[in-house]
């Protein structure tokens, strides 16, 4: 077998993507916990920690560029590196959405939540699960799994609609809730975008495996 060192670099890259995925999952989970507890100091830490995710993205991108420049990858090796470049961009943006939820926690302040959180944690749970499995599908080159994960985005979209409707009712009933309800709508929007970005990753996996990039699930937002 030739190109052993190149394969080693590719494996290293896959490991880094996995690590970055875990960092993003942690950020999303922490942001929802901070929202539930209205914990502003934790929110500040989440915002500060997003810099690590951004740095990771640039580190991985640099490795990709080095591999392209020095190893002249073609065919599926090239598609993998291009896929990684796109995946880390999506992961980085997901990190930004978690950071966005952190900022909402700070804006929300000490006033109590207008209602107990049900659908929002559920949205986060599904999005995180989709993300975990998409990274797994990437490592296993599993295009079928990637396609299946994409279709789950509809569930997150439905929950988003539901959150929106419920909060609209609160706002109509009592205009004093408008600010806090809006914060929660933003939160739901951030989570909805995270799930959309998971579908981007899944499209990249299909591209990596099959060599073509289909639009798997067109988000309604």
């Amino acid at each position: 077998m030739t190109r052993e060192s190149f394969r080693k670099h590719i494996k290293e890259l896959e490991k880094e993507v996995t690590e970055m995925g875990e960092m993003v999952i942690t950020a999303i989970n922490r942001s929802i916990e901070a929202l539930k507890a209205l914990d502003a100091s934790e929110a500040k830490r989440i915002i500060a920690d997003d810099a690590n995710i951004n740095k990771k993205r640039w580190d991985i991108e640099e490795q990709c560029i080095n591999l392209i420049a020095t190893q002249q990858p073609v065919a599926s090796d090239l598609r993998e590196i291009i896929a990684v470049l796109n995946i880390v961009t999506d992961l980085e943006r997901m990190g930004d959405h978690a950071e966005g939820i952190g900022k909402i926690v700070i804006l929300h302040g000490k006033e109590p939540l207008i209602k107990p959180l049900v659908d929002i944690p559920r949205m986060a749970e599904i999005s995180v699960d989709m993300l975990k499995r998409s990274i797994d599908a990437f490592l296993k080159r599993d295009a079928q799994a990637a396609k299946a994960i994409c279709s789950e985005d509809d569930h997150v979209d439905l929950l988003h609609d539901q959150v929106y409707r419920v909060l609209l009712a609160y706002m109509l009933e009592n205009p004093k809730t408008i600010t806090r309800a809006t914060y929660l709508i933003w939160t739901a929007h951030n989570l909805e975008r995270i799930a959309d970005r998971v579908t981007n990753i899944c499209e990249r996996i299909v591209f990596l495996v099959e060599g073509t990039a289909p639009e798997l699930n067109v988000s309604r937002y």
Partner: protein
Amino acid sequence: MENESTVETQDLNLYYGDFRALNDVNIKIPGRNITAIIGPSGCGKSTLLRCFNRMNDLIENVKVQGKINIEGRNILELETDLIFLRKKVGMVFQRPNVFDLSIYNNLKFGLRIHRMLSDKNQIMQAIQNGLEQVNLWQELKDKLRKNARSLTLEQQQRLCIARVIILKPDIILLDEPCSALDPIATLRIEELLRILRYEYTLVIVTHNMQQAARVSDYTGFMYLGQLIEFGKTNQIFTNPREKLTENYISGYFG
């Protein structure tokens, strides 16, 4: 005209004695494009190239079966005029093979053999055109009496290409035309090939996969005498259909 196939083989087999060097090769080479033939050493790519102007006839114990149609005629038929064939299907080799003659006489040689032009002015005009097409005219117009061997390797290779062009071929075969050249000269020759493709059908055999990817429009991958895959170069290098092609171009064997 663009994509019309100019060279087409049908069940082409070639034996060196008992060794089957080409195994049922069916290839359609599109006109006015660059087609690269790649594959590991001994896969038959040079053998295939040499079939297109019957250079293999010069080797003893060669047996060829099947058909090679060039512009609708099977060139393997007995009545094929080989001198005319090699004029129409020119060849450039790995090492520049200039004759130990002046630049002028190197270029005039083919014209004389093929009795193409006798008028001195016409010959001079043809030589100028030939050198212009390979970007050598400005450099060499005042040195035409110099021995061609005094030129740099790149200039010699350009001269070899001019020597082919001057005979107005339809097809130019290039067997590793840059392997004796440095990287910069290689890139300049590749640029030249990209321009020549508008007028000629070029078939290039190369060991250098990056060169095939850079320069060609179509790529054929050969392995153990068989044409494993043929397609647009972009497709071959981004999404080959055959696992064997993928492994070869990715550098996992060969």
